[in-house]
C-alpha cells in the first residue's frame, strides 16, 4: 500500500458511514429483530453451545448477511480445542 492510499483510508467518508449504518438498519428491519434482541439471542446461543462444546464467548460473532433481499443469520463460533482427528 502506498502513502496515498494510507491517507485516503484514514478518514471514513460520510458516504461510507451512511452505507454502513444503513446496511445494519436494513438487516435488522428485514429480520424484524432489534440490535438488543440480537445481543440476547447471541448470549443464548453461546449458553446452548457451551453445554456441548468448549468455546470462547468473546470470539463468537452473530450477524446478518444480505444477499439479494434475502437475509440470513450467520453465527461464527470458533472452538477453543481443535479436536484430534480419530484415525
Amino acid at each position: 500500500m502506498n502513502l496515498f492510499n494510507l491517507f485516503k483510508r484514514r478518514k471514513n467518508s460520510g458516504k461510507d458511514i451512511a452505507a454502513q449504518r444503513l446496511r445494519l438498519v436494513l438487516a435488522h428491519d428485514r429480520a424484524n429483530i432489534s440490535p438488543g434482541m440480537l445481543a440476547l439471542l447471541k448470549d443464548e446461543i453461546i449458553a446452548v453451545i457451551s453445554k456441548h462444546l468448549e468455546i470462547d464467548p468473546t470470539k463468537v460473532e452473530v450477524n446478518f448477511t444480505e444477499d439479494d433481499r434475502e437475509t440470513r443469520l450467520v453465527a461464527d463460533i470458533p472452538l477453543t480445542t481443535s479436536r484430534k482427528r480419530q484415525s
Partner: protein
Amino acid sequence: MAGKIITISSGKGGVGKTTATANIGLGLAMLGVRVICIDADIGLRNLDVMLGLENRIVYDIVNYVEGRCRFRQALVRDKRFPELFMLPAAQTRAKDAVTIEQMINVANEAAQMVDYVLIDSPAGIEHGFRCASAPAEMVLVVTNPEIASVRDADRVIGLLEAEGGSPTRLIINRIKPELVQRKEMLAPEDVVDMLSVDLIGLIPEDPEILAAGNRGQPVVLNNGSSAGQAFLDIARRLQGEDIPFAPLKSQSFFRRLFGSR
C-alpha cells in the same frame, strides 16, 4: 386494451413522489400517450398544484366514488398537453374516504380510457398506501440518497413483496453529483445494491424543481433542466425505450447493471 396502472410510492414523505408523478405523467403526455394521474393522497392533495391545475378542479375522486358525478366530470384535462388528465384527491375528507375496492375500480375505469394511469400514493404504509398500491401493475418507489428514506423505501418494497404484488422499480431523487463525487453522499449504486431493485430513474437535485413548483409548470417542460430530462427519460423507459443512465459518477457501474439488457 386497458392502460397500464403504475403507482408512485415511497414510505417517507417529502422525497418527491408528487413531483415524480407530475413530471412522469406530463412526460408521457409529451411523448403522445394518454395519461390519467390520480391523486390518492386524500385530505392532503398536492398533485393539482404541482401540475398547475388547481384552479380548474370541480369534482374530486371522493365525489365520484360517492356517485355525485360521472368519471369524466371528475377529470381535469391539461391544456398544455390534452393527452394528460388529472383525477384530484378530496382535500377536506378523511384519509379513508375511498376504500381499497373503490380505488381498484377507479383505477380500472381510468385504465379503460388511457394508456397509463399513474397513482400518486400518500406517504406512510397505512390505508392510503395500500389503497394506492392495490390496483398497481408496477410500483415506482421514490427515495433520496440518505438513510431515512432508503430505510422507508425498503419497508415499502418489503410490504409489496410480501403481498406478492407488482414489480417495483426505483427512482433515486435529489442526487447531488458533487457530493457523491466527494464521497459525502450515498452513491446511486450503493442504494440500488442495498435495496436490490431495478432502477428506472436517477434525478439530480435541481433548483429548477422549486421554480417549477412555484409556477405549476413541471420541470419536464423545461428543456434546459437536468432533472426535467431525467424525468422524461423515465417516461421513455416506461414506453420501452432503452435509455442509458446518464453517468453521474462511474460509468462502469451502469454498464454492469444494465449492459446485459
